[in-house]
């Protein structure tokens, strides 16, 4: 039984990180209907900036973590301003091509730095002995990661429910024309959505880097796992991203925990999420929390 709970706990840990990675992707899609293919690169950049600030510059790690969030906030905002602002109103396929181009450019830039090929790891700043409760153990880095993730998701939910800016972002995602006509600046909202996506990506990057070590391949793989998560959650729902992220994490842990090794199976954790995803999409094609677009003519 404790093995089961151990899998549940690690599933939630992994899943909440998926959720945080997916959050930025959902923010951008929700407000501007842009699929940001380069999201994984922004996550990676967030981790690298945190590392560079704390190890190379010598800033305390918590401060470095916050600073990297601020830096990617402005980085993502300028990406929107420079590349995507002029694409407002263009066909969605052009916009997607631009974010693919963006991904290649960021890849290229990252490979120019040592981060592209080498492995780094954060200096240990948390106790090494894991926390044990009822036979379930969880490491401090995972624990802190989960707490930060839920705090951020809570913060974003509050922002969207209560703040004027958050409500105007929701208004824009609902109806752009109507939003403009009541005095909301749509370009400003798009910029802000990217900025906040950058911020959450940096947070995700920092947490992943802390748990798995800083390796470009691992980090940008999170930009790919984001796709099944958001499709399952329903592309434009923050709650959906959280729930789907955790479901993905649990499926992955259960699959590799119970299936691997029996009947000669291996690596089921990699495949199982996609199989379940296909099955769920058969019954709920808009994802778990996606909006059904009903057209009345």
């Amino acid at each position, binding site marked *: 039984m404790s093995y089961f709970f151990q899998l549940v706990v690690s599933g939630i840990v992994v899943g909440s990180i998926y959720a945080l990675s997916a959050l930025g992707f959902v923010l951008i899609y929700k407000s501007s209907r842009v699929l940001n293919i380069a999201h994984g690169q922004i996550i990676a950049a967030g981790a690298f900036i945190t590392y560079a600030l704390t190890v190379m510059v010598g800033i305390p790690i918590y401060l470095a973590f916050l600073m990297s969030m601020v830096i990617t906030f402005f980085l993502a905002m300028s990406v929107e301003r420079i590349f995507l602002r002029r694409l407002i109103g263009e066909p969605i396929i052009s916009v997607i091509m631009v974010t693919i181009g963006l991904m290649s450019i960021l890849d290229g830039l990252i490979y120019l730095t040592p981060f592209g090929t080498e492995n780094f790891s954060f200096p240990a700043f948390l106790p090494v002995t894991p926390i044990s409760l009822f036979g379930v153990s969880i490491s401090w880095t995972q624990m802190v990661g989960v707490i930060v993730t839920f705090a951020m998701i809570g913060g974003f939910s509050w922002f969207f429910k209560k703040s*004027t800016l958050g409500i105007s972002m929701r*208004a824009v995602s*609902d*109806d752009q*024309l*109507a939003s*403009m*006509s009541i*005095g909301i600046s*749509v370009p400003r909202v798009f910029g802000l959505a990217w900025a906040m996506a950058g911020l959450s990506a940096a947070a995700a990057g920092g947490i992943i880097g802390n748990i798995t070590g800083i390796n470009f391949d691992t980090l940008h793989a999170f930009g790919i796992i984001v796709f099944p998560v958001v499709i399952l959650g329903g592309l434009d729902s923050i709650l959906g991203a959280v729930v789907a992220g955790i479901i993905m994490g649990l499926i992955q842990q259960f699959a590799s925990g119970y299936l691997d090794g029996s009947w000669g199976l291996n690596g089921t954790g990699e495949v199982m999420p996609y199989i379940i995803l296909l099955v769920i999409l058969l019954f709920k094609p808009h994802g778990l929390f996606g909006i059904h677009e009903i057209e009345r003519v």
Partner: protein
Amino acid sequence: MTHLIVSEVTLTFGGLNALTGVNIAIEPGLITSIIGPNGAGKTSLLNCVSGFYHPTLGEIRYGKYNLTHASPHRISTMGIARAFQNLELFRGLSVLDNLLLARHKHLNYSIFHAIIYFGKASRIEAENRAYVEKVIDFMELEPYRKKMVGNLSYGVQKRVEVARALTLAPQLLLLDEPMAGMNIEEKEDIVRFILDLKKEWGMTVVLVEHDLGVVMDISDRIYVLDFGVLIGWGKPEEVATNPKVIDAYIGEE
């Protein structure tokens, strides 16, 4: 009292001229209608005024403001509001919330006041709510106050659309086919609202409408567009006898 002056406005999409050298002067306190056959450029003209399109040539001025290159969200703060031809409402919100959302520019209290809430913040919220209630009263939307907009009938949704424009407290109201797809009674209601807006609220109304009967009855001034060119203007009786206008509507032999 502010005049809206559209001078020599040309709007080009690729090689197609949607508007060609259009001159219009909207006088304050009057109901001005813009009519014309389908594709004449009526909505394009409204889009230019409300900032959704920017004229290729020419200039649009509203009092001291130059609207030629202003963005829609700026224009909505200059006392110009617009209701759309196709419904552009927040369908998942109640009527009340749709209208309150349009007051967000008036929520000018700081975060400190928001935290304390009592005092300035609660007063401003109450003022906004009072204004919204006044609009709801005027547009006779009381029975639907808490209903979700997406579930209301088309005619009521059109009224919410107009109400939301009113909630911005504009001096100039642009209405794009507010009566399209309505039955006689619903049309009569809207006509009454428009006349009351002029008389009681002293509002300037610009109306794009296909129902010529209504237009002739309630307009003080009429502008007629055909293929993006202004072919006639003046008081209703002048326009009705203008041979070019008759040609455009009835066609030549």
